[in-house]
């Protein structure tokens, strides 16, 4: 998985609790992305980062925040988890030029009860 790890890999939490997912890369790639994948919706971009402390919203950013204080780490926080945020979350990285491949991590399966 191109030097990308995600933690935790599985998590069960309760509605209303905050949750933080971590993406760590060893490739020194500039761009990092958080996606969620749900049946019938494909891959939807939540937030992305184009450098340390440089982040922007994707198409489904409500209820999520991100931080990137180091090149290698990109954190996704669910402020107050809801059942609609039950999903599989993927982190991806790319070097950033046009046509550069996005490399995906193994995913985190999150269940919000």
């Amino acid at each position, binding site marked *: 998985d191109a030097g990308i790890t995600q933690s935790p890999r599985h998590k069960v939490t309760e509605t209303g609790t905050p949750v933080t997912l971590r993406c760590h890369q060893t490739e020194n790639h500039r761009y990092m992305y958080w996606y969620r994948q749900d049946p019938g919706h*494909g891959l939807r971009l939540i937030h992305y980062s184009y450098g340390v402390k440089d982040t922007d919203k994707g198409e489904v950013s409500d209820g999520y925040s991100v931080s990137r204080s180091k090149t290698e780490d990109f954190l996704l926080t669910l402020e107050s988890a809801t059942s609609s945020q039950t999903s599989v979350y993927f982190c991806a990285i790319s070097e950033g030029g*046009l046509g550069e491949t996005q490399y995906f991590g193994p*995913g985190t399966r999150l269940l919000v009860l």
Partner: protein
Amino acid sequence: QQQVKQSPQSLIVQKGGISIINCAYENTAFDYFPWYQQFPGKGPALLIAIRPDVSEKKEGRFTISFNKSAKQFSLHIMDSQPGDSATYFCAGENAGNNRKLIWGLGTSLAVNP
């Protein structure tokens, strides 16, 4: 709003047959079109990609056909094998969109032995 429309949603092919997945896009500024392959429990991985200055690109059994005037592109898998059973995603990217891919919803391919 979905800017990349992918069809069919699911596809069943016999071993040795040809699998064809189609995508249509709306944004004429797109200038890079990748296909990603995803196996169950894994993150997507780049399979093959094309730029709009060519009409076809072939890598082994996988071919992308591109029709710029129709704003359509397709993935052909020749001599389909059971190991090709996966979900396939098409996407589009333009240089002015800060490296964000616009994804199709995916096609689940099953190749029967």
